[in-house]
């Protein structure tokens, strides 16, 4: 499966919470949604913990090429 971006993960989490709160799906589906949601939340937290401001100077990058 393709790795999805942080922003897409946030969107996915939003939609999963909505599905869970609506509570209209069968329980198996709800549980798999729940597991996926928690997994994504943990991935986002890991990402945030690992992230620090990246600063890329394009002119230097171009000179290196």
């Amino acid at each position, binding site marked *: 499966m393709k790795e999805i*971006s*942080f*922003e897409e993960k*946030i969107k996915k*989490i*939003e939609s*999963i*919470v909505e599905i*869970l*709160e609506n*509570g209209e799906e069968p*329980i198996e589906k*709800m*549980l798999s949604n*729940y597991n996926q*949601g*928690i997994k994504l*939340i943990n991935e*986002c*937290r890991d*990402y*945030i913990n690992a*992230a*620090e*401001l*990246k*600063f*890329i*100077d*394009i*002119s230097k990058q*171009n000179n290196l090429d």
Partner: protein
Amino acid sequence: MFTISEITGKIKNILEEEFDGIELTGEISNYKHHSSGHKYFVLKDNNAQIGAVMWKGVRLNFIPKDGMKVIVKGSIDVYPPQGKYQVNCKTMVPAGEGDLYLAFEALKKKLTEKSYFEIEHKKKLPNFPLKVGISTSPTGAAIQDMIKTIGRRNSLITIYFRPTLVQGEGSAEDITKAIAELNKIDCNVIIIGRGGGSIEDLWSYNTEIVADAIYNSKIPIISAVGHESDFTIADFVADYRASTPTAAAELVSSITVEEINTFLGQSADRSTRSIKRLIDIQKEYLGTNLEKKFQKLIINELNNYKQSLDHNENYINNYFGSYISLLKEKSKSLYLQLKANDPLSPLNKGYALLMSENKFIDKNTSLTKFDEIKIIRKNEEILVNIKENL
């Protein structure tokens, strides 16, 4: 003696050699932008005037107007067929603040007519940009302020910095190139900006090429030029105007890491609450509802059985009842039949039975065989001897 051509050639040589690379100031009049792309006009002051030409391909950072004071750099050209001399302008800039203001208004009017400032051309800023392109001077305070602000609020962001000439010769072209390069990087949003300065310092942001570059950018652009009170053409064309570079940095990091963390925590809580509630509902359903349903079903089933048993019982009873009465009926008639054939019944009428050795003597047996027989009558039994066979 000179021919006209000879003297004109000599004048041409002298003038063009003497007045190469001159700088002069004057007021524009009779400005004509020819369809060929060349621009013809007159430069004058109170007492004199000189013809001027700017050949096609020379970049202008403003739209010249009659009455505008300008500074031009160039040389004197002589045009022998007409015996005329004129200034060949290589560069031209407005001379004073008032003239810059006129140029600013002229470009604003032109771009308004081209509907560059219309709201439908504005691109929406992303809610949650993670790649931010910045074009500004590498030496000013603006870049430091922006890095600090973004880093403090949202460390998830990657800044793509394109050091850019923000004033002086070639700066408008460099800003244009910076916008194109940042477009290639696939940023979510671009900030073009610089710190405050005079109208001359900010002039590149009032040029048509920069306006075109902003207008044609595929990526939304935030313009943050100078101080809050400074307005440039770039501000009008950009998708969003921030009053200062710091304000632009705050805008692109409008969602902070703390807010994302809060969102993640809330999402986890809400998910867990929802799934727990769902499980509780399922449990309750199993525990009470289903159990009750089962019980009800079983009781129903048992009742059905009972009913069918009762029904069978009745049937059996009925059946046996009639069978028994039939039997009764039958036995009664048998009894009557038997009674009618009772061998003792003739005794009532006075007949007698004959027995020998405890057996009845039937009609085919001759009494001659016996010495002695028993005669049975209704009320007496006697033994008789057989005397003689007649």
